[in-house]
């Protein structure tokens, strides 16, 4: 799992490259736990090169969701592969999280 970041104004885009399982999800958890992440309005997650996600990976996002919501930080996924999106759908997480098609769409999602 390779994680890269790009910052633009009050938005941070985290790009995930590889497979997010019980082993590699620890890295993502560390990344999302950094205090500086709370300085942003939006955390965008670019899933274009995320080839796999297990419950451990989903668990990392879920565990930060409430904290982000409380701080009015919007967590938005984009560029998600169908087979990865399907894993969110099996649990109904697609209804509780914001998943959009493109970066442009992610940028237009409001923080409401």
């Amino acid at each position, binding site marked *: 799992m390779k994680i890269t970041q790009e910052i633009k104004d009050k938005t941070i885009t985290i790009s995930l490259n590889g497979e997010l*399982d019980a082993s590699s999800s620890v890295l993502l958890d560390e990344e999302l736990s950094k205090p500086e992440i709370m300085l942003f309005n939006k955390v965008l997650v670019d899933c274009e090169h995320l080839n*796999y996600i297990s*419950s451990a990976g989903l*668990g990392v996002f*879920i*565990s930060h969701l*409430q904290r982000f919501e409380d701080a009015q930080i919007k967590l938005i996924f984009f560029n998600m592969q169908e087979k990865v999106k*399907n894993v969110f759908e*099996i649990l109904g997480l697609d209804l509780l999280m914001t998943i959009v098609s493109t970066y442009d769409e992610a940028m237009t999602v409001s923080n409401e």
Partner: protein
Amino acid sequence: MNNSIRIKSNKSNLKVVRDFVTNYLSPYTLTEKELNQIILAVDEITANLIIHANKEDESKYVKLAIFQTGDTFLFELSDNGHSFNQKNYKEPDLKKIISEGGKGGMGVALVKRIMDKVEFTTQGTSNICRLYKKVSYTI
């Protein structure tokens, strides 16, 4: 084709198990989604056995064997760790997990939704999990 694999209880071996399942199923024309779901179910159980049953003790192993009868695949996973009581399983309440900032409890839910039948048994110190999945494919 070799139908079984044995790995040490290290989370880094989850990838090894996923690759093994991918290779085993490669002759079958499953959709990308179907293949990913099967790999995911096996990965979830393997992770549970590594982490909860074998406590990531590398002197302990997890074994996976794949069998096929007609259009049904059986994935049999076993360990030699502590008995892992699946009877305590409860359907996860996602909203509750989110509000509490929790992480866990979704793996077995995924497996149960993906597979047609899931059996957990204990034999001595070994937990055995059998996952059955019916698929339509052509070779």
